[in-house]
């Protein structure tokens, strides 16, 4: 019997602790209440889009369209909020779900690899956002009350954090306690076996992409609410960020291993790293170097490459 390897999630948690320690040592203000709030706001957005991405990566696929879905959602949100009021929330969630479902159909029915399929929809959805409004849109005067549902707080607890936590709970329950969530894990772990065992592979794929669209929509809502505006370039950086959050948390790119808890830790690490580097005064242009190194190290630690003859 082989010795059990250290679970990736423990490595991620260790990484989290080391980062907190290092940044605190670098600058005492890192642990200030104000800075902690800033970090948690960013974590909530990373978490929402990362949880969706986790669903897809767990199946062994990838969703490159999450950034465009966030952009589209932010633009549509600003366009409809004046007329729909609070109903704008469910409306744009459906937009996100539908965009994700479109990805799901392309990948599962047309049998196009997710990398190419979502690369295509990434362009399509982004163009759609630009066609709706090429210039930034602000929250209309009469709708500040609606956005402040997201920006408000109950006692010391900010609504944004509650949204992040609620999103986490929904995805966690889906993964752990529903058959479709299990199906996603099974097909990621071994698709051929899943097919021979009678699992509905297309359905699991479809749901995973729809959930990714939902996560991106939530992230888009939170982001444009906190910025009081929506524009087509808002989501671009979140493609890489969402993937980074997933792999840094220890979910394997090959699928079948990892989960929502990993992504929670991953989002905390990424949030702290982004913020901490600025706090301790690392040059903005140099920060990408550290992010890049982190992603590569994370994949090196979590990805079981022993079974692969060729890495492509």
């Amino acid at each position, binding site marked *: 019997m082989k010795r059990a390897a250290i679970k990736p999630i423990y490595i991620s948690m260790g990484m989290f602790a080391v980062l907190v320690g290092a940044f605190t040592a670098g600058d005492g203000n890192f642990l200030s209440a104000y800075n902690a709030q800033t970090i948690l706001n960013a974590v909530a957005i990373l978490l929402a889009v990362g949880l969706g991405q986790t669903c897809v990566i767990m199946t062994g696929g990838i969703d490159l369209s999450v950034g465009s879905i966030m952009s589209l959602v932010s633009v549509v949100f600003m366009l409809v909020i004046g007329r729909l009021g609070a109903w704008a929330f469910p409306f744009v969630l459906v937009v996100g779900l539908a965009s994700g479902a479109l990805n799901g159909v392309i990948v599962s029915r047309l049998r196009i690899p997710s990398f190419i399929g979502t690369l295509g929809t990434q362009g399509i959805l982004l163009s759609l956002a630009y066609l709706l409004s090429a210039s930034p849109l602000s929250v209309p005067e009469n709708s500040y009350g609606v956005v402040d549902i997201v920006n408000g707080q109950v006692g010391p607890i900010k609504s944004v954090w509650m949204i992040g936590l609620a999103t986490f709970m929904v995805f966690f329950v889906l993964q752990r306690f529903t058959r479709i969530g299990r199906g996603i894990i099974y097909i990621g772990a071994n698709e051929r076996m899943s097919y021979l065992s*009678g699992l509905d592979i297309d359905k699991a794929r479809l749901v995973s992409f729809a959930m990714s669209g939902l996560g991106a929509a939530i992230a888009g809502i939170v982001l444009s609410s906190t910025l009081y505006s929506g524009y087509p370039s808002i989501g671009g950086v979140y493609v890489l960020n969402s993937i980074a959050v997933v792999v840094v948390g220890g979910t394997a790119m090959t699928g079948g291993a990892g989960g929502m808890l990993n992504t929670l830790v991953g989002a905390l690490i990424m949030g702290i790293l982004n913020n901490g580097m600025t706090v301790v005064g690392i040059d903005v242009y140099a920060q990408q170097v550290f992010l890049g190194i982190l992603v590569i190290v994370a994949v090196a630690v979590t990805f079981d490459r022993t079974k692969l003859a060729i890495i492509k």
Partner: protein
Amino acid sequence: MSEAILELRGISKSFPGVAALKSVDLRVDRNEILGLVGENGAGKSTLMKVVIGFYRADEGKYLLRGEEVALGGPDDAIRAGVGMVFQEGCMVPNLSVMDNLFLANERGFARGPLIDRKRMAEAARAQLEEVGLGSLDPRTSVGGLPASRKQMIEIARLLWLSKLYGSENPVLILDEPTTVLQESETEMLFRILGELKKRASIIFISHRLEEVVSLSDRIVVLKDGVVVSDLERGKADVPSIERLMVGHELAAEHYRETMQAGPRGVVALSVRDLSLSGKFEGFSLDLREGEIVGLVGLLGSGKEDVCRCLGGSEAPSSGSISIRGRVSRFSSPKDAIAAGIGVIPIDRRNEGLATSLDVASNINLLVLSRMRRGPFLSPALERKSALKWISECMIKTPSPQTACATLSGGNQQKVVIAKWLAAEAGILVLDHPTRGIDVGAKDEIYRRIRELSAAGLSIIVMCDTLEEDIGLSDRILVMKDGRTVREIPCPRGGKPTPLDVIGYVV
């Protein structure tokens, strides 16, 4: 005594749980055709992979032209003049004949940084001539060519490489070359091999014993990883080789024969005139409750395809499958599972298990719908079910949360069986249930199979050896070239010997 070109002394090779080769001696002489025979699983493939440097032997010496060598891989072997022709060919289908011939060795045709295609075509033509393919245009793409041509091109390639590296008297290994050939093509191949013998040595592997006897100068018989005989030409005939391949008489209790219950009750599965074009034809079977039927035949006899049709992963072109009197049509494994057929596949790691997931997830896969409380899955119910089947099937695992990858082959197989038992499949298709499993675990699987049959399950088995097929089954169906050629009863106390059966198989 002729001169040995290639000599293996005391070669042993083990894989986790099985010793594939046990101190094997093998000699190939100059200008000789050596026949190599043995049952499936006797160790032929492993031995040949050692010869071409794909595997490194755990023990033993490897001598080429009298000198000890240590091959780092198949490329080393080719440089030393040892190469293998694979049954289905090992070529890039969308490239031309000459590109395949000189693949990775185009440097000799360089003209500056470019390749002189014209000179390459001329060289290809000359090389093809040597194997009787002078009329073939070297610019044809390989993909559309018949298997016989592909084989000859591979032989031509190996010959050319041996010239390139200056190895005189190369050793060519042909693995089951004739199974993909028509009769006339086989004759042609043999004629060319007879020619080739003048400047090369050939190791010829085949299940068609008549061919081996007529072609070979010497025949080596492998059984269970040991060379059991080395026969000179003229001293070997088909029946004596068959006897050697099968070996000792089987010990009855080995397969838990005393527990053999025999068929009872009604017909659970009825198959009528099932066919899959190009694979098998007119397959019929009535499988009763509690009955174990063995499907026997060589690789490619069609038995695997029959099982794929029964499991729903392949759609038959004609014929019918009825389960307990109801005609069923399977468009995917899902339908077969719903009808109560479970297939335990030969390829555990790729088709049977998700090895990265834990034991509980694998066992409960098919029955998750029963693990619900309200709308959600209940971890408590899942754990209960996993623990029940772990003890029921005697799976040795530290906990239900242990990843299957860390279990031994035998225990992994028990997890797969548990998964299908949990789903209450009434008809089980066991595709080589003891492949790669050690002796102790084998016995536990045999006992399990007996218990299942006693409990009324209907079972179809395909085993690693004839002995196992006969030992486990109530009757066996022998398949050859896509047809059922014989049905042989194997009741308790009245089992045929493998020798009685093998004549129908090969």
